């Protein structure tokens, strides 16, 4: 059975059965979790270096609030690559190589998870609607638009997360323009073409409609920022804006924010890297302040912050961290975890594998990530 046939069958089954898992799943009472991908690809020296950091809020403030893991590592295994989609799926599934090719092209990797993601485990265990299990994605990594569900036989589309991104907004906007029919023929044709292109970018057999709650979110976003895309925040600041607005309007229980802009250093300008780290640091501060000011989140939210991968540390290059080509340094990351139930001011001073993140989040939220390979970091919990 090929992937599309499998997905179609799974979708049809889920639809026919009326998504029965919601009837049996329990109400969720645990903490909220915000997983921040400090992507795309950062070295320790510019992020957690005591005196060399470009993320002072993270390094000097957040590390004190919880457990600081300075030596997280991506395992050196055959086939394990240090890149963004791979690292993101490692964080979401707790398992290496838990993905397969879904039509990659030159310079455009396209993977899909083959094991359940945290969102699927969570929604299988608890009665949580899709719009409260959220992925926030940037515009430069369309490859990660489609991690909302995997192709595992027991999970998949019925337990998917929702995605907030410009890609999704444009899908909503173009569908709305076409439905309203109030613009001229040229604009209608442009909307039809862009909508078709966006749908074609999804390699999966089924592209689930956005839920009514998310559609309402985009309706309000459009009313605020308009259609032209020139008024909303841009780059990684957009992700912060989406995440904060989502916390106010959708109240996600589990949310992953996929920051990415440090990866601009691939084109050679080192200041893009350091400035992007600063932008993420500011974003973290805004997210934390939003949580502290919101009664729904205050005192009941755990932050897990970790990069998708490290970067090269190549003394033979003018920009030693230009890439992350599976070098030793690209396997070196870190993590900062804080919130209720987490030790304060602790440094976990031992090598920790990246695959530990997913099962640890699962344990904190009260479910088990069955397919995860990593260990639960029980020593960080109070």
């Amino acid at each position, binding site marked *: 059975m090929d992937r599309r046939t499998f997905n179609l069958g799974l979708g049809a089954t889920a639809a026919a059965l009326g998504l029965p898992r919601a009837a049996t799943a329990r109400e969720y009472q645990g903490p909220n979790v915000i997983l921040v991908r400090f992507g795309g690809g950062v070295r320790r020296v510019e992020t957690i270096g005591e005196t060399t950091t470009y993320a002072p809020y993270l390094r000097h403030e957040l590390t004190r609030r919880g457990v600081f893991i300075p030596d997280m590592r991506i395992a050196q295994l055959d086939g394990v690559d240090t890149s963004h989609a791979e690292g993101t799926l490692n964080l979401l599934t707790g398992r290496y190589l838990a993905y397969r090719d879904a039509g990659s092209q030159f310079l455009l990797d396209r993977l899909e998870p083959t094991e359940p993601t945290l969102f699927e485990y969570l929604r299988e265990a608890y009665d949580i609607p899709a719009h409260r299990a959220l992925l926030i994605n940037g*515009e430069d990594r369309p490859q990660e638009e489609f991690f909302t569900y995997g192709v595992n036989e027991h999970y998949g589309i019925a337990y998917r997360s929702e995605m907030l991104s410009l890609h999704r907004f444009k899908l909503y906007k173009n569908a709305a323009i076409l439905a309203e029919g109030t613009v001229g023929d040229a604009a209608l044709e442009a909307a039809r073409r862009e909508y078709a292109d966006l749908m074609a970018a999804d390699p999966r057999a089924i592209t689930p409609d956005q839920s009514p709650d998310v559609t309402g979110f985009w309706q309000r976003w459009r009313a605020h920022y308009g259609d032209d*895309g*020139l008024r909303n925040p*841009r*780059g990684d600041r957009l992700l912060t804006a989406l995440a904060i607005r989502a916390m106010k309007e959708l109240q996600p229980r589990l949310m992953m924010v996929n920051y990415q*802009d440090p990866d*601009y250093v*691939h*084109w*050679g*300008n080192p200041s*893009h890297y350091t*400035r*992007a780290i600063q932008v993420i640091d500011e974003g973290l501060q805004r997210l934390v302040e939003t949580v502290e000011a919101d009664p729904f989140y205050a005192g009941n939210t755990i932050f897990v912050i970790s990069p998708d991968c490290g970067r*090269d*540390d*190549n*003394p*033979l*290059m*003018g*920009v030693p961290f*230009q*890439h992350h*080509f599976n*070098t*030793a*340094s690209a396997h070196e990351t870190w993590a900062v975890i804080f919130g209720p139930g987490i030790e304060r001011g602790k440094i976990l001073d031992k090598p920790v594998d990246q695959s530990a993140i997913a099962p640890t989040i699962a344990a904190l939220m009260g479910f088990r990530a069955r397919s995860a390979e990593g260990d639960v970091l029980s020593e960080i919990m109070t």
Partner: protein
Amino acid sequence: MSTVTARGGVLALPGRLIGLVRDLVVGMLLCLSPLTSLIALGWLTRVMGATIARRTGAEPPTVGWILGPRGQGWVTRALGGLAANIRSGVLTALGLAILTLPFTLAWLGAWWAGWENSFNKGYEQASVGPLVWMIATAAALPILAHLPFALAHFAAQRRLGAFFEVGQIRQNFAAAGWRAVWLALLSALAVVPFFGLRGLPVFVEGIVPGFADMTPEDQLQVARGFALFGAGLAFGTMLFLRQRAAAIYARARLRPDPPARLARWLWLILAMALWLALPVAIVFGQFLNYDPLIWLTHPLILLPWAG
């Protein structure tokens, strides 16, 4: 250090081989830094001039690395070659820079501004960077096609103004006929190893086992090895290409009647198409291993320094 003449057959074969090895070693060492590569550039231009003189029936000058000609005083004898190389190198670099910096600076600016704009998501001016790069490249191609002829003309005339005698240079290019395209093809092929050289350090951990665990001193040794290889490649390739350019230029000067207009345009278009390999390779090389200086100088168009 002794001097050699560019005249073939003066020295016996073993002596010429020893001379060639010595020239390659000295040239390679000088090409390790941009500053000292000026001396190598000057020497290459003087050797070009000697080749053109020999092939056009004139008396070729003696070209040495350090020693000057005999009979003009001991200072000239002791350091005349070095002084001539420095003078020639500075003038060659100046002439080449005047011809190439207008578009290489535009490449540098277009790259920087384009990605700066992309980083800031400046959708409103997204086309500026690519447009500037394409215009600069369109302006560069006819200059690049004629550049070896301009250089050869300067080497023959030994006047800075010779770089800008457009009519004469175009006439020599036209008279060279298909050989101008051949020279462009050789240049385009020479682009490939320099592109590879940019990429080599990126994959050093795959090339040199245990590199990541080496001490900084050991890593420095590896870096020196890469630099030496690059310098050798730069000098050796330029020696070959400049000698080809000199030979083709000399032949063109002796040709009484230039080819028909249609053929001249055809050769020019083909040469320009081949020279497109240079900006394309520079762009992809920057994607692999960025260095802002590499926009401004490439062994084929300015200093024989590989970065």
